[in-house]
């Protein structure tokens, strides 16, 4: 047996294996976030002098712009998550239950392909498609739908399209794996007992897929909330996103205290949503994460 080599080497081995994990979790996750929290609770009172205060958070609530952008980001992220779920569910269902063998595997692989390509490239595609001199406005003119090319970028609906597009994979995969494990005979039995499509969906399919739905929604919401690229390129200047505010404070204005407070608020919102998602579906964090 293994433990023949004694407890001392065993201890040494434990610490050797523990060291990289601790350096990672303490040095790159825990301490930086504690530092961020400390940073957000201080105020510059003079050159090189700082005092603890709630000034950064007060600014956030007092300045309507920041508050509006925060709420806007949260609401659009929620809408994007809901739309992603509505689009992804039928696709996952089709792959898991309506097709089989090669067709199913092929469809699944095809759904994954776009996500192997960088988000930058995908966003470039949407820009070329939607801008005023782009492909879709041109098509609309030649079809006679509009008289002159319409600017389709820089609208809330455009951000939604971009966000949903970027998020689809993270919804389809967990939904597929939870639907795949649903025993077909359960559905057949439900129909035999007189259930119709809607009741079967509501009482059999959705409860079974709940872990997958939760996992997908949590990941998608978090990713859209923290998105920078899609929101800032498709949204343009007048449709602000909260991560852009963080960037402005941190990098452009070099106001780290304010930026840290904003970052912490975003982290709080994101964690709160994860917690609510887990609560509503009665899932454990570890189970959900290992699914996605």
């Amino acid at each position, binding site marked *: 047996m293994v433990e023949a080599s004694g407890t001392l080497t065993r201890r040494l081995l434990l610490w050797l294996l523990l060291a990289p994990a601790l350096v990672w979790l303490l040095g790159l996750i825990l301490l930086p976030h504690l530092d961020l929290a400390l940073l957000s609770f201080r105020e510059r009172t003079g050159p090189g002098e700082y005092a603890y205060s709630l000034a950064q958070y007060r600014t956030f609530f007092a300045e309507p712009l920041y508050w509006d952008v925060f709420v806007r980001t949260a609401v659009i992220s929620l809408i994007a998550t809901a739309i992603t779920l509505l689009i992804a569910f039928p696709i996952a269902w089709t792959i898991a239950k309506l097709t089989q063998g090669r067709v199913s595997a092929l469809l699944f692989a095809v759904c994954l392909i776009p996500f192997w390509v960088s*988000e930058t490239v995908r966003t470039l595609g949407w820009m070329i498609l939607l801008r005023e001199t782009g492909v879709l406005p041109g098509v609309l003119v030649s079809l006679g739908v509009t008289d002159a090319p319409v600017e389709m970028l820089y609208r809330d609906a455009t951000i939604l399209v971009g966000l949903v597009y970027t998020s689809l994979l993270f919804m389809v995969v967990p939904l597929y794996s939870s639907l795949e494990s649903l025993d077909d005979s359960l559905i057949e039995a439900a129909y035999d007992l007189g259930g119709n499509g809607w009741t079967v969906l509501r009482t059999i399919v959705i409860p079974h897929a709940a872990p997958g739905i939760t996992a997908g929604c949590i990941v998608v919401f978090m990713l859209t909330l923290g998105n920078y690229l899609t929101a800032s390129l498709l949204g343009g200047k007048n449709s602000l996103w909260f991560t852009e505010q963080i960037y402005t404070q941190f990098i452009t204005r070099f106001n780290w205290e304010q930026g840290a407070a904003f970052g912490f608020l975003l982290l709080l919102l994101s964690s709160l949503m994860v917690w609510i998602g887990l609560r509503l579906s009665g899932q454990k964090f570890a189970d959900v994460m290992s699914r996605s």
Partner: protein
Amino acid sequence: MIPSLPRPLWLRVATVVFVAAFLVFLFLPLVTVAAFAFNDAAYPAPPWQGFTLDWFTGDESKGRTGLFKDQELMGSILTSLLVAAWVTLLSVVVGTTNAFLMERMRFRGQGLLSLMMLIPLVIPGVILGISILAFASRVADLLGDVFGWEAEFLRPGLPLVVLGQVSYLIAISTLTISARLKRFDRTLEEAAYNLGASRPAVLATITLPYLRPAMIGSAAIVFLMSFENFNTTLMLVGADSPLTVMMYGRMRDGATPVLNAVSVFLMVASAAIALLLMRGGAQGRR
């Protein structure tokens, strides 16, 4: 397929239409990007002006800077490759030690630690970036004040980008490699010990070869995610921009189709990695 499901004709037609529309939605942006890389026009916009390879090979003589002559872009690709190589190395090594730590060791606080290892996955990338930026510069200030060291690598720049990306990519490599180690049949190791093999020999000839598919798989995924990372990188970048940050800057200013050319290059590269990975995966599953 569930044969006994009552599926009326309209539903079957609707399904096919929906899936087809979904696929168009998925591929439309990619096809568009690729197509305009070959359009003979100064900007990536319709109408179609004819086929050209200028945006790949063009130089001063044609008045267009193609991808291969664009020093800035080529440099940023190299930067991204360098960052991704370091990130992959660190993530796979730490992911492997983490897998052994969580699957083979028993110690107090293990449950808490395994939960902590998942947390980086639910922190938005921008926040990982700013927290590491702020903490690293605090440490650098401290080193400067106390020891008089110039800890240049803790200021915005490539080493910090590597640390930022590694902070959440280790979580992914840990999950992948642990999952495979969990399925390992330990009687194989015991048999080797009974036959007189030493601990390092068993590790090198039995356990690590078994883990290899998971290590290669997570290396490919981590490499790709590092190469494509934008959120965390943007916050930590210094003078040398990786490709995604460079592309972002140019996209804001209205870029020439040379960006489409880079994109085509990226698509081909990603497809190659994906194929490699699928082959490796098929072999790994016996």
